[in-house]
């Protein structure tokens, strides 16, 4: 153990690779798929899939002991490329995280191995419902066990399902659906189920038109008597009414792993804007002096320096939360700290970048305005700013969710 900011070689290599991918296969299509909102970006998907399946280069490989840090570094790089396209990566995404975290070895093999070969496929997680927001206890989608067929029968509506369209429309895709097996049990009754592409009874009824990350498909799903085999339930089926909501907490633990990644995504978008801003200012003859006293600074210099500090602060919080996972430490507090900071910081950084570039910043001729639109999602999904503040507050105050609401 030591305090060190020296990424290990695997991390550096992973970063370089992803940077190249971002430059070659993302940036050139950024505007196209911002405009063609719901089209599948094959120019990006195909090379990404080839790479992921080992055909297009080395597989993403984490450095020893720095697995999650490396994932964060790579994620930053890809979202520096394009956050919307990143979310359309042919990969298990959050659905995969859930299976990896809560599934049995058999489930992991069954649902994740298809992502290693064949045609591009997608994974997704379906949690949010029209009336539930961030409140898992309010989930209305039901799962009823049919003993006759040994199947779970799912009914309900899910919104804001990232990559849901890809997951259900391409063979081998999976959607992890949160549903309650017992509404009277609140959170303890919430379980997650894997629904595979092609399963009857689940359908995409539309994709949201969004402020940003328009390349990403944010689907609304309807489940009508959607039947999945018993072994598609992740975790245990029993509902512990007393003794709390361990199952739910397990589900929530997925967020402890995903929030650093989401924070890294934010950092990537923020860095895209900041990098471009600095390059553009340089082209215009404006250099940032790091040794000018405050009384001599220009307003632009101070803004840029503050943006750099904020971005780096966010990145370090992100890496810290990731590193704790690598160490096997509980990072619930730190993951939410990183996520809360990341959403807000990159929202401000990208908004400021547009402002500092003046009229040209506001124009669609550049991508900066797009990055501002893309960035804002980080303040909203995977728990809004407020939800993450709430989690952090409960932890630092040692308050339960019933005391601090």
């Amino acid at each position, binding site marked *: 153990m030591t305090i060190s900011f020296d990424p290990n070689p695997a991390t550096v290599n992973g970063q370089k690779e992803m940077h190249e991918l971002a430059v070659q296969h993302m940036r050139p299509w950024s505007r196209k798929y911002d405009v063609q909102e719901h089209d599948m970006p094959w120019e990006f998907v195909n090379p990404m899939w080839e790479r992921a399946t080992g055909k297009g280069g080395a597989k993403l490989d984490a450095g020893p002991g720095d697995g999650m840090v490396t994932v964060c570094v790579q994620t930053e790089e890809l979202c520096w490329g394009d956050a919307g396209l990143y979310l359309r990566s042919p990969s298990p995404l959050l659905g995969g995280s859930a299976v990896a975290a809560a599934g049995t070895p058999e489930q992991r093999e069954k649902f994740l191995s298809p992502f290693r070969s064949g045609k591009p496929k997608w994974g997704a997680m379906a949690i*949010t419902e029209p*009336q*539930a*927001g*961030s*409140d898992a*206890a*309010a989930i209305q989608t039901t799962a009823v066990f049919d003993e006759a067929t040994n199947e779970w029968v799912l009914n309900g509506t899910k*919104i*804001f399902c990232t990559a849901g369209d890809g997951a259900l429309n391409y063979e081998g895709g999976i959607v992890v659906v949160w549903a309650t097996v017992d509404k009277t049990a609140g959170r303890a009754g919430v379980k997650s189920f894997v629904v595979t592409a092609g399963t009857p009874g689940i359908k995409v009824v539309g994709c*949201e*038109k*969004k*402020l*940003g990350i328009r390349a990403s498909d944010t689907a609304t799903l309807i489940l009508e008597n959607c039947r999945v085999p018993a072994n598609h339930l992740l975790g245990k089926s029993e509902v512990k009414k007393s003794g709390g909501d361990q199952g739910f907490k397990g589900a929530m633990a997925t967020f402890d792993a995903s929030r650093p990644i989401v924070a890294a995504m934010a950092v990537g978008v923020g860095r895209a804007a900041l990098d471009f801003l600095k390059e*553009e*200012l340089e082209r*215009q003859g404006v250099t940032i002096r790091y040794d000018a006293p405050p009384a001599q600074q220009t307003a632009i210099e101070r803004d840029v320096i503050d943006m750099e500090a904020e971005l780096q602060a966010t990145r370090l919080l992100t890496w810290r939360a990731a590193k704790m996972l690598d160490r096997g430490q509980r990072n619930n507090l730190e993951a939410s700290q990183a996520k809360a900071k990341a959403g807000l910081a990159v*929202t401000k950084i990208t*908004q400021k970048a*547009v*402002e*500092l*570039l*003046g*009229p*040209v*910043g*506001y*124009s*669609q*001729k550049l991508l900066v*305005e797009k990055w*501002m*639109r893309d960035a*804002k*999602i980080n*303040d*909203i*999904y995977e728990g*809004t*700013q*407020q939800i993450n*503040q*709430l989690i952090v507050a409960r932890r630092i105050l040692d308050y339960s969710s019933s005391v601090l*609401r």
Partner: protein
Amino acid sequence: MIDFQPTDEQQLVIDTVRQFAQNEVRPQARDCDESKKLPEKVLEQAHELGLVANALPESAGGGGERSAVTGALVAEELAWGDLSIALAILSPGLTAYPIAEFGSDAQKQTLSAFTGSRFVPGSLAWVEPRFDSDPFRPQTTARRDGADYVLDGAKCFVPWLDGGGDVLVVASEGGAPQAFLVPRDAKGLAAEREKNMGILALPTAELTLTGVRVPAAARLGGDAGADLRRVLNQGRVALAAMAVGVARAAFEVARDYAKERIVFGVPVATKQAIAFKLADMSIEIDAARLLAWEAAWKLDQGQDATREALLAKRQAQRIVMEVTDGAVQVFGGHGYIRDYLPEMHLRNARGFASFEALALV
């Protein structure tokens, strides 16, 4: 006497425009943004209200009642309805107000176009497509050449509605900004429809002026020229008021949504994090409005309002970002969706820091 209550006449104007904004403008806002088209019928309806014509001289068929304060009141209400449509509705003033105030007798003859039965848009080209666009010192130049002026440079954020006549182009002449009436089909003038982050429904153009030649009489005010600083300040007051209007719109939809949206069993508005955010919004909106009014009042007194207009615009452009961003936040996931207003408010809000003279009071 210090006072913050509109006159009875102004209150009538507010009520009328508010109703119009609510009934005619707001319902079109979302679709217009998506289709990037203006609702022509609404523009005609607005024209019938005489919002610009009332401020034009009686000699030109107008109401002869120009007041920056009244203009600010109108601008806020319209922008509350929708920013793009508001800018379109007020666009005749971009050409007509400067002519009415500073124009030569010959130029004033053209004003009656704006008081007729049909809506006629105006246009003013001020901002330049540079990160360091400087409204007081445009890089676009006007050079006297015999009986003509020759204009060179580039402009952006130029309202470019169908059916418009001359565009007033601001250019530096000997270091100071002056304005020139340029026909849209002038030789050397190229206009390209812009795509920006926001105000998508409003057709705006980026202009390139390459040796555009206009007669000396095309200079606003003729030989006397014009006090463009004053026009800029009128623009800043208008934009400040419009930013307040956008902010108020975002605040109101967020407030209403927060009261309706049930999360964890209670309306999210009952959470201090949301409620205090809304409280802060209400404070900042009111404060920004008062600053805009003060700058407008100063203009109406015929005083130099450069400082007040700057403060008003800066404050308004800052708070409209905070408020619209906050509104998206209050909406949560739905704030990110184009079915609701906040994301559009946020996109529109981001423009104010760069806008200049897109509307005048």
